[in-house]
């Protein structure tokens, strides 16, 4: 997660807690407002849907098989037959790209969801319980955050070994701390907010307060974290695969495609730049969407 | 004729919002005589702060002054270029705000913040500016002025911060001081001190435009009062007149709903309903929805501000009739 963003998410969340002002506080209204004001975000949203569909329907969209080699047509440049050319094994690049999208999108979404669940559970617990629970959880988060994310991912991948499931695990372990920190800081604010105090005075039990009043008020923030963490996961995985530490062949993620294409950078540059462009497009779309959400959920924007 | 410090004529401010155009200040005319305290009173959202900002020239996008003129000692200032306007701000007109907690720069020593105004508007050296700052600190009764000069805002109490704000506003001896709810965030005992300070400035010849929601404050210090409702002035008169014979139903309602300190009552008077949304103002009189004496005419036509007796103007059809009679 880009550092500045995290800060902004935290601040926006804090402000939402402090000032439940405004007329359009409901989520549905906010989404409508975003749709109205931020066309880029809407466009990005549909782009993401489109890419997801393309990934799911990959077998129906291309006549070629993902893994069938055709050594006669190695490294052929883009043509009518192979729209994006072929790779070093003569496989159709477009087909590989579509199938790679499955892996890459999965890698974006699954570990992000896992880290959100883990991070928000630990964050709420740390923030609400305080004391020793808080110290232990937050020190663990500090240790995680002390690592440059790439380095932590490399170390974990090294000890777990390659493969899809391990990539999921690794990215979850890399990302949870950020989520926990944001959720904790929001929980601290919510815990002292009047409506939580009101619930406590009414006699609502702690577990119910955490679920009903705190976690549900964290949801918009979690949504922003989700949209901004997905591209981060995709980027980290592609970097890992680029170093040969991520997905193992014959599975294809976009990062891995770039890794293999790199050897042919000078005679078949499309093998690098096509999946690279795909990564960029997806990441950009998620970032635009996430920023749109953040803007619309940030009460400061409304003030002006 | 009495010398006027401020003369505002038909000032209108528009804001283009997502849901349409609103007029938080609608055709407002007011005057502040030299050495007088004039009050604007109204509930939240009635446009009193916006009027003050428009006079200062501090309306920012998406708000816009769309009409009217402001004369400062006979000189029209709304048509001045921004650069000229800026020279007036802080020197000839200055303003203090409601929240002394957030109105001072947190990372700058308070002395420097006051000094900045001096350096901006006079050609004096740093030493002279510092001396002036310390003088004004003593004048607004900041104890241990030298020590306070080097304090940061968070080290001062609310009352002291408001004094610093007043010092900053008064340091260049402005002709007009606009005080936007200067005591709302303060305790009553401190409030009384700050009001005293404003009276002292008035005695020194500064015209003061005091904005408040509290009739008590208005009664205590103002000579003349404007009552605002939904962006318009609905009644204006000398303070005694307003409290003695209010003519507009809204003013009457406001006065009746003041809870008395002196005697307990059975049930409190209220004005039914809430302040209307500026986007959905009624077609006729803007107060018609909450008015107990609303007639058919009130719902259709908007009344004008008419003089019922010398110095007493009311925006109400009922008062018009009385005036004729």
């Amino acid at each position, binding site marked *: 997660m880009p550092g500045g963003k995290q800060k902004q998410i935290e601040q926006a969340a804090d402000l939402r807690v402090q000032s439940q002002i405004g007329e359009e506080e409901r989520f549905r209204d906010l989404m409508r407002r975003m749709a109205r004001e931020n066309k880029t975000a809407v466009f990005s949203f549909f782009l993401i849907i489109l890419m997801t569909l393309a990934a799911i329907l990959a077998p129906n969209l291309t006549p070629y098989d993902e893994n069938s080699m055709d050594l006669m047509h190695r490294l052929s440049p883009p043509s009518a037959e192979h729209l994006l050319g072929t790779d070093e094994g003569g496989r159709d690049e477009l087909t590989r790209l579509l199938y790679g999208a499955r892996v890459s999108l999965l890698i974006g979404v699954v570990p992000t969801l896992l880290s959100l669940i883990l991070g928000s559970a630990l964050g709420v617990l740390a923030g609400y319980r305080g004391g020793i629970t808080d110290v232990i959880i937050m020190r663990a988060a500090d240790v995680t955050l002390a690592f440059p994310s790439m380095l932590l991912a490399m170390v974990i991948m090294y000890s777990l070994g390659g493969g899809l499931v391990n990539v999921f695990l690794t990215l979850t372990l890399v990302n949870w701390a950020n989520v926990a920190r944001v959720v904790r800081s929001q929980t601290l604010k919510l815990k002292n907010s009047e409506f939580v105090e009101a619930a406590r005075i009414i006699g609502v039990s702690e577990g119910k307060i955490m679920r009903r009043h705190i976690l549900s008020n964290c949801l918009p923030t979690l949504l922003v974290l989700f949209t901004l963490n997905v591209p981060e996961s995709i980027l980290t995985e592609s970097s890992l695969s680029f*170093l040969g530490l991520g997905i193992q062949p014959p599975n294809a993620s976009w990062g891995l495609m*770039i890794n293999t294409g790199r050897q042919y950078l000078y005679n078949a540059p499309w093998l690098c730049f096509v999946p690279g462009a795909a990564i960029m497009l997806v990441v950009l779309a998620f970032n635009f969407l996430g920023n749109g959400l953040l803007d619309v959920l940030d009460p400061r924007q409304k003030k002006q | 004729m009495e010398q006027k410090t401020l003369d505002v004529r038909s000032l209108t401010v528009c804001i283009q919002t997502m849901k349409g155009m609103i007029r938080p200040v609608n055709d407002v005319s007011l005057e502040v005589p030299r050495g007088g305290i004039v009050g604007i009173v109204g509930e939240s959202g009635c446009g009193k702060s916006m009027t003050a900002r428009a006079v200062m020239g501090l309306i920012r996008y998406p708000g816009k002054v769309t009409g009217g003129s402001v004369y400062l000692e006979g000189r029209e200032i709304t048509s001045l270029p921004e650069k000229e306007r800026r*020279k007036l701000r802080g020197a000839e007109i200055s303003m203090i705000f409601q929240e002394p907690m957030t109105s001072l720069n947190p990372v700058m020593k308070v002395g420097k913040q006051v000094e900045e105004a001096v350096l901006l508007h006079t050609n004096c050296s740093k030493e002279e500016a510092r001396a002036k700052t310390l003088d004004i600190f003593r004048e607004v009764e900041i104890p241990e002025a030298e020590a306070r000069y080097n304090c940061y805002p968070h080290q001062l109490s609310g009352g002291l911060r408001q004094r610093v704000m007043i010092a900053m506003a008064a340091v260049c001896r402005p002709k007009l001081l606009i005080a936007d709810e200067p005591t709302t965030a303060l305790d009553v005992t401190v409030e009384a001190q700050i009001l005293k300070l404003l009276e002292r400035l008035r005695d020194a010849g500064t015209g003061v435009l005091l904005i408040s929601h509290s009739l008590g404050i208005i009664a205590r210090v103002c000579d003349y009062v404007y009552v605002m409702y939904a962006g318009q002035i609905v009644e204006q008169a000398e303070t005694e007149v307003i409290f003695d014979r209010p003519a507009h139903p809204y003013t009457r309602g406001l006065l009746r709903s003041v809870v008395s300190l002196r005697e307990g009552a059975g049930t409190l008077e209220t004005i039914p309903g809430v302040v209307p949304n500026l986007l959905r103002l009624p077609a006729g009189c803007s107060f018609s929805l909450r008015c107990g004496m609303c007639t058919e005419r009130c719902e259709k036509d908007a009344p004008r501000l008419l003089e019922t007796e010398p110095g007493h103007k009311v925006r109400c059809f009922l008062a018009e009739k009385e005036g004729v009679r």
Partner: protein
Amino acid sequence: MKQKIAQRSVQAVIVLIGVVLLTFVMLRIVPGNPIETMMGEHADAATVARMTAEMGLDQPLHRQFFRYLFSVVRGDFGTSYSLGKPVSLLIQSAFGNTLKLALFAALFAWTLGITCGLICAVSKNRLPDRLFMGFSLLGISLPVFMAAMFLQYIFAFKLHWLPISGTDSWKCFILPAIALGWNSAGQVAQMTRTALLETLAEDYIETARAKGLGNAGVLLSHALRNAMLPVLTMMTIQFSSLLSGAVITETVFSINGIGRLMVQAISGRDIPLLQGTSLLATSVVILGSLLADCLYSVLDPRIREES
């Protein structure tokens, strides 16, 4: 304030010990004996056993850990399995290159980022703002390796303006620094914009205007200093993301730096080297955040008071 810094330092040391423990455990749970992996198939059982004992790998894990911790405190990071040299020596020779790369990249990122951020904030929601913000998002979304390869392909391979790889002259660092700084520039730009816009909406800005200051005056004497405070704290995260990016950039441009050393350590299953480099990288991040904290409390009188 001193007390607060001391407190934060203690915290930093605790985190650092946590880091050592985490890397230690992570690297020891790898299946297989590292000595066997290192020596390959030719190793006979006796030699492996001797080497294992020599390196203390036959001892219980907690004793190994404390042994390592003590030697680290003494400045001894062990000997690299794959390169046969002391880890501290390897790190020493690589650190200079990474430092140069990171400094160039940071310089690039901060100048570009802050300038863009300022332009955006001042022209909020108008064309320059939209343009530069789109640009900065592009920066954030571009994977470091793509930027690196793209720059290398265009400016070194096609145009021959700059060297493809190496560390021989300062010219060699231009492309890697841009590739590495690109990402951070986007982040800095966004942060600067947000922080400045937020500051400009504060009440004391209104006071400054009421005082008679113009746009430039307000910006210079009131808004910038307050806005730069949160931007400064970003330095922490910048250290971290620059180091992450350095791993990739150094690989692409064949720069002998810490990042490349890490990649080598991983491909050579070289535990002491990996541990040493990780420790260095995390220390830099932790130090960076400590520095940012100190700076913040120097610049913000409210925090200076707190302790």
